[in-house]
């Protein structure tokens, strides 16, 4: 391109040549700019909407992360096959929190700030979710819990609350567990055995409240660590105090240690548990007495012959060929909660019409009706209620072999 005027041309011609040259260059520039803007807009329209998952994908709770991933993946496949959200496909980005709150918080920040995800889904561990929620409220991104049941996750006191949940909530679960123990085992002297972390603490409050409302006093409150080898000393205290029913809150491995320790002691006592045992190979770890632990769930694949359950199970088998029977999709709560939560988030983004965090938050309130896997949701979220599931949605189950089976009442 000629940029210097020719030395042979007179002055006015030089000026003219310069002006024409500048115009040409300017118009080319404008065209290029318009083309790139168009390309950016077009590209943005094709670009997937990213959603993030921060969950335990390794360690003792890895199976929970796998279940959540499966539920989200199948829902995303369905949404994308139906044309996506706002005309764009959805893409899932996963990060392993290793059940560590600091790592979970870092992962959530990275997903929001670097990857620009629209929503962050949470995993099994209440301590991790409790670490992420303040960041969600401060940075104004929606956090959707699909497993961790800690009461303060959604009831966090923030003026503008960005934490939502499609899962059980401790306070309501504890209420349901106490009622179940009364109905099924005539419990009069309950003893609590709780994992020594914020999840256990959250349930201690819930149990105490539920028992107090029925004028029942606990015989004792014992705690255990995740790595405890022997729970006999704690159980011995509860037995000496006259406990007739154990209220248990712990994840898979420590729950299995409780059953093994009870076997060792030869103490046969009803165990009514939060859903910790569902998070892994409890049937194998706890041995032949695993079925004695009755625990709460939000969903089980009871009927895979018809209805929504059959549809989702078939989709799971098609997407994950290693799934052969319902025993391969334990724990079903992770799959079902995540599946429904993803569909609700997609509806919220449609309602919002953008990927703006505050708009999606309002979009969640605007969902009127959705036929999900767990139930048909009618206005699942409101400014006063950030939990889409309630006590009517809980079911009681136990392990039969490696399968989680509903207990008919």
């Amino acid at each position, binding site marked *: 391109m000629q940029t210097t005027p020719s030395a042979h041309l007179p002055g006015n011609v030089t000026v003219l040549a310069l002006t024409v040259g500048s115009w040409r260059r300017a118009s080319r520039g404008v065209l290029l700019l318009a083309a790139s803007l168009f390309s950016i807009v077009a590209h943005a329209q094709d670009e997937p909407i990213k959603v993030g998952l921060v969950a335990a*994908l*390794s*360690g*003792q709770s*890895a*199976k929970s992360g796998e279940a959540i991933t499966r539920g989200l993946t199948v829902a995303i496949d369905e949404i994308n096959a139906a044309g996506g959200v706002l005309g764009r496909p959805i893409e899932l980005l996963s990060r392993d929190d290793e059940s560590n709150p600091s790592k979970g918080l870092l992962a959530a920040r990275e997903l929001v700030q670097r990857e620009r995800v629209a929503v962050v889904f949470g995993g099994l561990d209440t301590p991790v979710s409790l670490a992420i929620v303040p960041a969600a409220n401060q940075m104004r991104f929606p956090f959707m819990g699909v497993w961790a049941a800690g009461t303060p996750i959604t009831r966090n006191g923030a003026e503008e609350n960005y934490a939502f949940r499609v899962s059980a909530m401790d306070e309501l679960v504890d209420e349901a567990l106490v009622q179940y123990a009364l109905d099924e085992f005539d419990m009069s002297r309950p003893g609590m055995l709780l994992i*020594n972390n914020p999840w256990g603490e959250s349930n201690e409050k819930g149990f105490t409240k539920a028992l107090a409302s029925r004028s029942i006093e606990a015989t*004792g*409150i*014992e*705690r*255990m*660590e995740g*790595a405890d*080898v*022997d729970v*006999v*000393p*704690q159980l*011995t*205290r509860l037995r*000496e105090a006259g406990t007739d029913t154990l209220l248990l809150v712990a994840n*898979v*491995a420590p729950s*299995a*240690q409780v059953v*093994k320790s009870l*076997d*060792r*002691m*030869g*103490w046969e006592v009803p165990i009514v548990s939060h859903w910790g045992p569902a998070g*892994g*190979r409890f049937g*194998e*770890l706890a*041995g032949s007495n695993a079925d004695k632990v009755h625990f709460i769930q939000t969903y089980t694949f009871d009927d895979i012959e018809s209805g929504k359950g059959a549809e989702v199970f078939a989709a799971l088998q098609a997407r994950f060929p290693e799934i052969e029977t319902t025993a391969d999709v334990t724990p079903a709560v992770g799959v079902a909660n995540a599946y429904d939560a993803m569909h609700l988030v997609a509806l919220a983004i449609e309602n919002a019409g953008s990927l703006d965090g505050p708009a999606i938050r309002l979009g969640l309130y605007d969902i009127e009706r959705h036929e999900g896997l767990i139930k048909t949701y009618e206005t699942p979220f409101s400014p006063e209620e950030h939990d889409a599931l309630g006590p009517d949605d809980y079911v009681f189950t136990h392990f039969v072999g490696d399968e989680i089976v509903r207990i008919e009442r």
Partner: protein
Amino acid sequence: MITAALISGLGLGSMYALLALGFHITYAVSRTVNFAQGSAMMVGAVIGYTLCITWGWPWLAAATVTLCLCALYGLLIERVLVRPFHRRGSEAWLIATVAGGILVDNIVLFTFGKEPRRFTLSLAEVRYDLFGTGVEALQLIIPLVAALLVAALLLARRYTRLGKVLDATVQNPAAARLMGVDVNRVVAVAFAVSTVFAGIAGLLIAPLISVHSDMGTLFGLKAFAVAILGGITSAGGVVVAGLLFGVVEALIIVHAGSAFTQIISFGLVILVLAVKPDGLFGRTAAVKV
């Protein structure tokens, strides 16, 4: 209630003692410790599970091969993570062994799997009633095995050539070297013995708990606390401290409740060390000036 606590505490204490003995052996011989002891315990349990449960080997054959592999693991740690640093007078072996343990834990996580598995053993299924408390045969065997190993170690040190060589190296490595003792080999053997002890602990504890990649982390930490508490230079001291720590832990749970276990047990450790900085049975090394 006390019987249950004592049985539970003695079983756990024996595990701490076995791991702590590993710390003692390497420290006595080379003034270094293997912070991957917890990891070696996990390696023992995982290899044992793979051979015995996954491949269906008889327990004895599986245990023998497992312990040989644990010894190899100890030799590798000494050769790669300790000797190069110690030779140069660097203390970097400390973090190298920590890092090595984490590395192995993660390799096991990705190869063995993310989920805890159950190591079934018929001995863990046999139950007795002892003073009104249900006890598994394995819980009684664990302290016995620990006691036998300690006795074997003490006798070997006293009556075998290797034991005398070991003691000579402990007393004065330079003099031992002048007398023709291959000090490097003695230190390597000490590391192998330490990881074999950890492997035995892993094989014994696995049927009582579940097998997974981070099962040794907390054990390793507590065992180090036990080694310091007993006096890391005294074999008998670390064993007594291990049993004491296990029993005190269980008694605290029974009498004060589980919420205070860690606070009281580690508070006691600090208190003992404040009064006796070299541990319960340790002696301050005499320094010639």
